[in-house]
């Protein structure tokens, strides 16, 4: 119907797909989303539940909300890590993470912006090509430092000089964040130990831009397309990603963008393969009882549950104990969906809850293959003064393969540079 006066709800409905509009009507308000929601578990407000968000969306489509209702809706939409737990338990299988992301984008289009913290990070990604507001030249420095500090078997080669069969994509966090650079170093070392011929992009490595999608930025498609084109033009056929967020970005968010999709694997998938083929030798015993935390972007969003567990079980001496909530029911640590940027206190409560679950297993450490989850969980450990350790899965693996490349050693050596 052309020419009618568009309401705020019309502008929001325009951005939602037909399927999403149908999904709004499919909600039965059964309450399973409330029962399992990790945010609701820490702050029992009905507004936080998926059914409440859907109720608001139903009301807003074709109409508009009052000021107070709008504020409540916007807060509930961003007070959410888009972890996908509500999707997993939804009896009618509403694709909630996609719905929240699309709703965020719709709200922005209708003139209702993201919370301030998210806007700042989105601007940084677009201006600096990373979420740390740092120069691109600094991005590949971890590789030089790692070689100079003796953590690598040989220097890493850049793709433009040596287009190897495999590209290792470190991502922003492991490239820039001093507390997580060990993830990049250890990933590279483990690939070298297995004899893999790979290269890195160094200062040419782009931010995957998936955070734009997570936070409803309408520039995502354009930014992602530019990156996909760059990767296609370089002729890259296989990408190994150590970041769960980048994996979701390159593997899943880019699904409709790639014109000639390269194979995208998460590091744990690749390491699982290398261990099963006997190419990665697990030499030393690691006497640790660990519990595994499933990152949402790998587990619920991409079905990667078994590979990281197989890697941990393969390490001699490691005993894996599951938390009551694991695999598709794993409690989110709150680090996804821009939640920490908007409501850091909520994220901390979620991580603290997860740490308490891990402590109850009497494990020495909680292990996860996502550096963002590591950061969130470590924050909770510090706040709770918990004795449990938080390790990236690489850390446990290098203790068996090459103990000299431990996280502690990397951080110490890098701090001297």
């Amino acid at each position, binding site marked *: 119907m052309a020419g009618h006066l568009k309401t705020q709800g019309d502008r929001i409905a325009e951005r939602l797909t037909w399927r999403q509009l149908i*999904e709004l009507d*499919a909600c039965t308000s*059964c309450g399973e989303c*409330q*029962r399992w929601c990790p945010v609701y578990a820490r702050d029992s407000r009905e507004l936080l539940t998926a059914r409440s968000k859907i109720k608001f969306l139903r009301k807003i489509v074709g109409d508009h909300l009052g000021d107070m209702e709008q504020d409540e809706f916007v807060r509930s939409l961003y007070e959410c890590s888009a972890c996908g737990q509500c999707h997993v338990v939804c*009896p009618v*299988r*509403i694709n909630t993470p*996609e719905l929240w992301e699309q709703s965020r984008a719709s709200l922005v289009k209708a003139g209702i912006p993201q919370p301030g913290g998210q806007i700042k990070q989105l601007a940084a990604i677009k201006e600096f090509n990373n979420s740390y507001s740092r120069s691109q030249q600094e991005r590949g420095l971890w590789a030089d430092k790692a070689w100079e500090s003796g953590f690598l078997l040989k220097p890493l080669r850049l793709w433009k000089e040596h287009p190897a069969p495999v590209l290792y994509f470190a991502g922003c966090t492991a490239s820039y964040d001093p507390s997580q650079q060990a993830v990049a170093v250890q990933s590279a070392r483990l690939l070298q130990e297995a004899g893999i011929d790979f290269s890195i992009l160094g200062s040419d490595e782009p931010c995957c831009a998936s955070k734009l999608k997570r936070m409803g930025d309408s520039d995502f498609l354009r930014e992602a397309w530019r990156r996909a084109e760059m990767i296609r033009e370089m002729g890259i056929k296989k990408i190994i990603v150590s970041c769960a967020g980048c994996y979701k970005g390159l593997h899943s968010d880019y699904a409709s963008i790639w014109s000639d999709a390269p194979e995208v694997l998460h590091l744990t998938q690749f390491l699982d393969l290398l261990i099963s083929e006997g190419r990665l030798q697990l030499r030393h015993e690691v006497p640790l009882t660990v519990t595994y935390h499933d990152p949402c972007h790998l587990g619920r969003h991409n079905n990667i549950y078994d590979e990281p567990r197989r890697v941990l079980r393969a390490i001699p001496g490691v005993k894996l104990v599951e938390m009551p909530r694991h695999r*598709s029911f794993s409690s989110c640590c709150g680090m996804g969906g821009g939640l920490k940027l908007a409501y850091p206190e909520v994220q901390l409560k979620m991580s603290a809850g997860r740490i308490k679950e891990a402590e109850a297993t009497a494990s020495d450490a909680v292990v996860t293959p996502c550096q963002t989850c590591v950061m969130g969980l470590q924050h909770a450990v510090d706040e709770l003064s918990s004795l449990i350790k938080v390790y990236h899965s690489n850390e446990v693996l290098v203790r068996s393969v090459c103990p000299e490349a431990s996280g502690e050693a990397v951080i110490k050596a890098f701090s001297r540079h």
Partner: protein
Amino acid sequence: MRSPKGYGDMGSVLTWGYYLVMLLFIVSYIQKISLLLRNKEGLPTLRSDITLSVIASAAVDILLLRRLFFSNPFLWFGEWLFHSCLALLMVRHLRFFMEPAPSCVFALQTPAIIAGYLLPLSLIYIFIAKLVIEKKSYIASSNFFLLALLLLSGISGLLMKIWFRVDLTGIKWFSLGIVTFRPVEVSHSPLFIIHFVLFLIVFAYLPTHIAAAPISLLDARQREKAVRSLMHEK
């Protein structure tokens, strides 16, 4: 066409009430569709990758409430029992609106009688599961209202079956009068009138998920089949 004895005026009131509820239902759907169409360029299209296995998987999801089984097996038992009994009873009720009724409707007599007993029990079970066991404000007020209406409807139907027998021939005349647009007197049974009014209220509050949920489940199954699908379960 007149039944032997009954409330003449009440028959007209209930018949017109039925038409009004049906009209409201149709108008609300037309309104909803037109609201969506004004924001979309074209009609929704089916994905090209729809296959028989996708349809079969979605059908299993719908018929067995498969997701609920994994997330809440305790509640699943009650919900599955309730939905199965309701479906069976609805099919069985077709005998009042069709002349002659199909033989399959008659064949369902024994299971439908059992379902008539189980339906109120399953609803009480769901109430207990949601209100007592979950502790939190798990049940939405709209669902609470609907469950209460269904429970009262089920109990009134059961009472007519066991203790307060009604003139089934009269009810059939009344029902046929509705569908043939020739209103007749309603059977002389206050319990039936209550049962019918409850049905009308339930229909007026009919949740939208009845039409949308199967589409949502089918879409989820199609998404799973995609090469690089998003959102998995295990």
